[in-house]
């Protein structure tokens, strides 16, 4: 019973944030871009966006055991004629590196929204090394990195990134600064 109450409260909080905040605006942009598949390894910062997609019957969502799976699903989606977006946190970027050769060689659109950890009021030092290496690792294999640290900038950045990816056949990661996400409650 206690658990249910907590869960409902969390649901309500996420729903409210989704309606008023950047997750809902990102969802609207991605829907306008005709995204039909979404694959994710969860992160607290992505929870509202994940919930919006999971409630959308027009979008196929895949929960992954590791982030690189999503890179392959995204490329398959494009081969089959659909647009896919991936949601992950910075630690997951490290899991993706070799699999990124697939969309890069295929020149298939790739759009990853990465919530950053290990860079702003981070309580967990184990998040720091991959947080430090996220942008460098992506750029080293040839993925274009864009970054936003405010909600306003994030909305514009994702809109531009979606056009670059899906219209321009580019492989893009948008890093969502940890400062924007706020300090993790622990």
């Amino acid at each position, binding site marked *: 019973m206690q658990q249910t109450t907590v869960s409902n409260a969390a649901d309500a909080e996420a729903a409210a944030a989704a309606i008023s905040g950047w997750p809902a605006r990102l969802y609207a942009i991605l829907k306008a871009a005709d995204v039909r598949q979404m694959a994710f390894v969860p992160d607290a910062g992505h929870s509202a966006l994940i919930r919006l997609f999971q409630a959308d019957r027009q979008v196929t969502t*895949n*929960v*992954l055991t590791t982030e690189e799976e999503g890179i392959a*699903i995204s490329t398959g989606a494009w081969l*089959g004629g659909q647009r896919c977006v991936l949601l992950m946190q910075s630690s997951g970027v490290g899991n993706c590196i*070799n699999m990124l050769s*697939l969309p890069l060689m*295929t*020149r*298939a659109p790739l759009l990853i929204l990465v919530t950053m950890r290990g860079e702003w009021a981070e309580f967990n030092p184990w998040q720091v090394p991959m947080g430090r290496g996220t942008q460098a690792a992506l750029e080293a294999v040839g993925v274009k990195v864009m970054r936003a640290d405010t909600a306003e900038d994030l909305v514009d950045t994702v809109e531009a990134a979606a056009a670059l990816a899906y219209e321009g056949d580019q492989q893009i990661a948008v890093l969502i600064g940890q400062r924007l996400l706020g300090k993790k409650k622990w």
Partner: protein
Amino acid sequence: MANPDAAPLARRAVVATLLKDRGDMLVVSGLGSATYDVHAAGDHDGNYYLWGAMGGAALVGLGIAQAQASRRVLVITGDGEQLMAFGALATIAVAKPTNLDIVVIDNQHFGETGMQGSHTGRGIDLAKVAEVCGFATAETLKEMDEVEALAGTLQAKAEGPRLFVIKVAAENPPRSLPSRDAVYVKNRFRAHLGLPQG
């Protein structure tokens, strides 16, 4: 009943049998020998060959299957390639596509890199793993008549994802190399589906 005295199956003959009457099936091949086997069976606009991205084949198949619900998608890969994507079996089982089949051509070795023994020769049973994950069908085949029977069912409707392990001899037949130009193969594949270049 498998005949213990039967010669191990030849991978090229297995893949040729699976693709003989492929209809409008879409085919994804995993890097290395599986890609060569699929090419040797006949290049086709509905093939997407992986030359790298080890562990990606079954999930490329999932992405295609989700985008092309009315087509059947067949992934042909090796034991080493599928072992690298062990978790993908969980992801595919949860996704429950009804138009995706995975065939693991299992020679129990990493054939491309010097025939080192793989996990499947040391007790890891990918069909059992798929079964436990919740695949609609998960079987291990060792006889050619079983492969022929499977070929006849690949275009039939399924209740969920299916995985078939086909045990083959550890051999490296002469390479049959498809284009490594993935952009070309992509555009050909998309055109085959009536999709624009890009």
